[in-house]
Each structure stands twice: as structure tokens, then as C-alpha cells.
């Protein structure tokens, strides 16, 4: 069965769109799909997008408009879509206790599906939803449904608490594990400051997405790891963040 985009991408917040695709196998939380945009050679490389949700055969992703590729993708017409996936290593889903989920911007998306899976296993979910400002917040009601407790932070205070999601997450503390996805600076602050284990979903530039080019390599205490096949989810405390945050 070939992947099909079931409807035009739906605008869910400023610069953010929801795409619904059928024909892809069921993912685990934190995996991604790799999409070729258009049939030509420009844009050339596939673009990786974390899975936001999967339900009854439909895979949902959230894209953030970042450049030429995503600008073309957001105006896609329904029909066949060249998507490979799900790919990569996702989050470990804690089966008991409590988890803290901290997302930044488009990085909140994979944490939604994770929260849903955590809830299904009976794990407590505290969610810190970080965004630049209120206009960039998407599908918040859906996130609330899969969280026992959800706090919004914005950089400018236009919604929720003014401040950084990383600070809010660290202040909350008490969880058995922290899952995070967002800008490198945010994930670094959480990895450095947390006493609990941290799983971070990397958002660096991918070449192939299937492990052949070594373009997305992350330096860790265990040596170089390819974000696309060894990740995108990695142990936050093992990542050498200085390399990513220069």
C-alpha cells in the first residue's frame, strides 16, 4: 500500500501544519517519517518529521515552515505522497511511575504521541508545552487530553507562564524520567539540570535519514552516533552538547 496524503495540510498555528497520511505502518513514539517533496531534484533531500499521532491506520505529522521544502509541502494536494517510515529509534515508554514531558515549538509534536502511549500504560504525564508566543501554539486541547497536568510557557508571556520550558521543567522536578524535544539549548539545559534520566529527540540536519551518509552524526560519550538510525531519541546525559550548541 502506497502512502497517501488524505487531505490538504491543515494550518494549526502560525507556520505549523498538520498532515494526515495513510498507508504507513504503526510507529512507536518518537519515530519519524522521511518525506520527498515533489518529484524533481530541488528540493533534493527528504525531510524528516516526527510522528505526532497514529490512529486507525492514519499517521499524523506536524510540520513547521522552515524553508523551501516545507513551504512546498504545506501546499501539497491530497493523493500519493513519497514517504518512507516510520524510521529511527523512538522513546522508551515508561510503564509505571511518572514522566515529565518538555517540548519546544514543533518539538512538542512527538511528545503528544508519547503522552498518549504513557497514559495507556498508566504512567503519570506532566507536560510542559513551550512556545515562542501564543500564535505558535497548536492543538493545545488535544495535548491536555493526554496529560494529567499541562503548563504552557511562552518566551513573551502571551500565553501561560512567561519563561523557558526548560526552566519550568526543571523547577517541576520529581518525575522518574524526562522526555524532551525542542531546540538544542533547551534539551541541553534539561539534560544538564535534571537528576532524573533524560531522553532527548534530536532535531539536527539529516542527509539521508536511513543511516548511509553519516551527515547527522551526534557526538556522545559513547562515540559518534547517527541521529537518524541510532536516534532520533538519545540519552540526553550522554550527548556532548557543546558540539551542538556552538
Amino acid at each position: 500500500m502506497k502512502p497517501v496524503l488524505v487531505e490538504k495540510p491543515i494550518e494549526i498555528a502560525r507556520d505549523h501544519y498538520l498532515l494526515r497520511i495513510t498507508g504507513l505502518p504503526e510507529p512507536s513514539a518518537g519515530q519519524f517519517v522521511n518525506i520527498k517533496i515533489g518529484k524533481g531534484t530541488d528540493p533534493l533531500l527528504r525531510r524528516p518529521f516526527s510522528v505526532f499521532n497514529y490512529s486507525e491506520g492514519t499517521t499524523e505529522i506536524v510540520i513547521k515552515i522552515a524553508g523551501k521544502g516545507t513551504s512546498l509541502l504545506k501546499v501539497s494536494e491530497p493523493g500519493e505522497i513519497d514517504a518512507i517510515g516510520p524510521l529511527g529509534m523512538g522513546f522508551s515508554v515508561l510503564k509505571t511511575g511518572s514522566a515529565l514531558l518538555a517540548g519546544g515549538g514543533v518539538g512538542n509534536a512527538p511528545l503528544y504521541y508519547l503522552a498518549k502511549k504513557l497514559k495507556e500504560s498508566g504512567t503519570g504525564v506532566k507536560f510542559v508545552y513551550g512556545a515562542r508566543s501564543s500564535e505558535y501554539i497548536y492543538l493545545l486541547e488535544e495535548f491536555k487530553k493526554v496529560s494529567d497536568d499541562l503548563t504552557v510557557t511562552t518566551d513573551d508571556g502571551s500565553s501561560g507562564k512567561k519563561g523557558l520550558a526548560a526552566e519550568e521543567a526543571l523547577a517541576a522536578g520529581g518525575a522518574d524520567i524526562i522526555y524532551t524535544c525542542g531546540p538544542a539549548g533547551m534539551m541541553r539545559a534539561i539534560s544538564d539540570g535534571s537528576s532524573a534520566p533524560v531522553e532527548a529527540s534530536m532535531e539536527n540536519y539529516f542527509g539521508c535519514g536511513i543511516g548511509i551518509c553519516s551527515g547527522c552524526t551526534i557526538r556522545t560519550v559513547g562515540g559518534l552516533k547517527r541521529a537518524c538510525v541510532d536516534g532520533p531519541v538519545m540519552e540526553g546525559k550522554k550527548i556532548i552538547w557543546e558540539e551542538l550548541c556552538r
Partner: protein
Amino acid sequence: MDISVKIGKLTLKNPVTVASGTAGYGEELSAYIDISRLGAVFTKGLSIKPREGNRGNRIIETPSGVLNSIGLENVGLDEFLKFKLPFLLKSGATVIPNIAGHSEEENEELCDVLSHTAGIDAVELNVSCPNVKQGGMAFGTDITIFTRLLEKARKKTGGCLIVKLSPNVTDITEFAAAAELCGADAVSAVNTFLGMKIDIKTRRPHFENKVAGLSGPAIKPLAVRAVYQIYEKVNIPVIGIGGISGTEDALEFIMAGASAVSIGTMNMVDPKISVDIIDGIREYMDSKKIGGLAEIKGIAHIRSGE
């Protein structure tokens, strides 16, 4: 229909190979294709000791192309022989290791060990990587250094020796001719073109090594030109590489004079593309009633009326 290809004493089952650096050690691609179907798998450039590669940004898309600065990250000779090669051979693949040593001595040793390893009938000497400071491209851009390396490598290489040429020279045919004189069995043309990206936000080069290698469809006409010119100058087979993204591109290289082709960057976009091109070449030959590749190899050089 016979689409096998002779490279020195080596016979490839078909002319479609995957290029070094875009196929890893075959493991990842084998999730998408049967790698035993390929003419050959050119594995990631090897050094004796494992190499970490370059720091910082390593890859970025350009219009119809890719700039990379991986820096020959590889597992090193021991791990290659112990784990990577057995996997490839078990999969039934024809393996051609790419050798990318820092020094003449390192290249000699790699040629010696690899060409005398069971299951390896050919090696490809990489004299053209633009992304490592020592050695690398210097071997491929200075004709004196190039010739000296090849003379030594030839003596140490038991089987077929293929030389991967750098396009970052004024006249690539000089290097191809020197390779032939030194006893190389074939040349691969071409490696990546030197390119650069400036980040206008930081106002600095995007890559730590400043320059990077450009590949992908953007370089295809440049590579076709190189293959065409080399074919006129030498008698050894040419393996054409540069932005091949479909059967028509592969045919273009063959008509320019390539005996075989390598798929590089496009493996990253479509991991199944190489086997699709094998099928495509067969279909083309079938539809044009062509019995063997020799009928079209270099055909672009024949003037009408000849």
C-alpha cells in the same frame, strides 16, 4: 541479454554500482534492496585506524545537490574485515572497498591487505576526497604525487585496482592517462567538486573545513563531460559517477564512454534507485533491440556517417 561488465579480471554482473560514501557498508541499503543484485558495492572510504570524521556541520542541501564534509568517518580496517565484509559477502554482494589512507604507506598497506583478502577482487583507491586536510585530494590533484602513489599501490595490489579521480584539476584526462600508465585497471570519474556555503547569519563558512564536496544532479553535466574526455584519452574502463538520478542519466554516462556507473547521492533520496536503474537499462536495451552494452558504450563519440 548480457549486461555484464569486465573491469580488468573482474566481471560485474551488471553496470550499476553504488558509490563509496553513499552506501555505508551495505547494511542500511540491504533493508531496501537485495544488494546482491548490484554490479558492485563500493564501501565507505577506509583507513587503517577508525576515523571520526569532521566536526560541526557535515551536510547541507544545495539546488539539486548536496554539499558534504563528512571527512571520511569510517570503522577502520579491523572492524571492516571482522564485521562489515562478512555481512556483505554473506549477502552475496560484489564488494569493492574504497581505500582512503592518509599517507602513501597507509594506502599501500590497505591495498596489500584488502586485495589479498578472500572475497575481494578489486579495490578502489580514493585519491580525491576534498574533506580531509592531509593526503586526500592532494594525491589526486598533483600529478607527481599521484603517479608516485599509484606506482606503489599497483605493486601492492593483488587484484583489480580502480582509481577514483578528483575533478578538481584543470585536465582530468592527464590523471586518467597517468593511472593507465601505472597499471590501473579502471578509473572512477568523478568524486565530488569542491564547493562552499557561507552562512549569512553567522557570516562564516557553514562547514568547519570551510570547503566541502558537491554531489548530486547539479554536477551531472560536469561529470558526463569528464567521462567523455577520459574515454577519448584512455583504453581502460571508466566508471561514471555524478548525479545519476535515473536510467536516462545512466545511459548518458554509458554513451559518453562509461563501462559502468555508480549511483551516489541519489541513494540517500531513494534507496531503491540503483535496482530500478538496473531494470531500466534492461528495459531500454530490450525496447531498442540492443544485445549488449558494448553496442552503446561510447557511442556518442562516433560521428554520423562513420
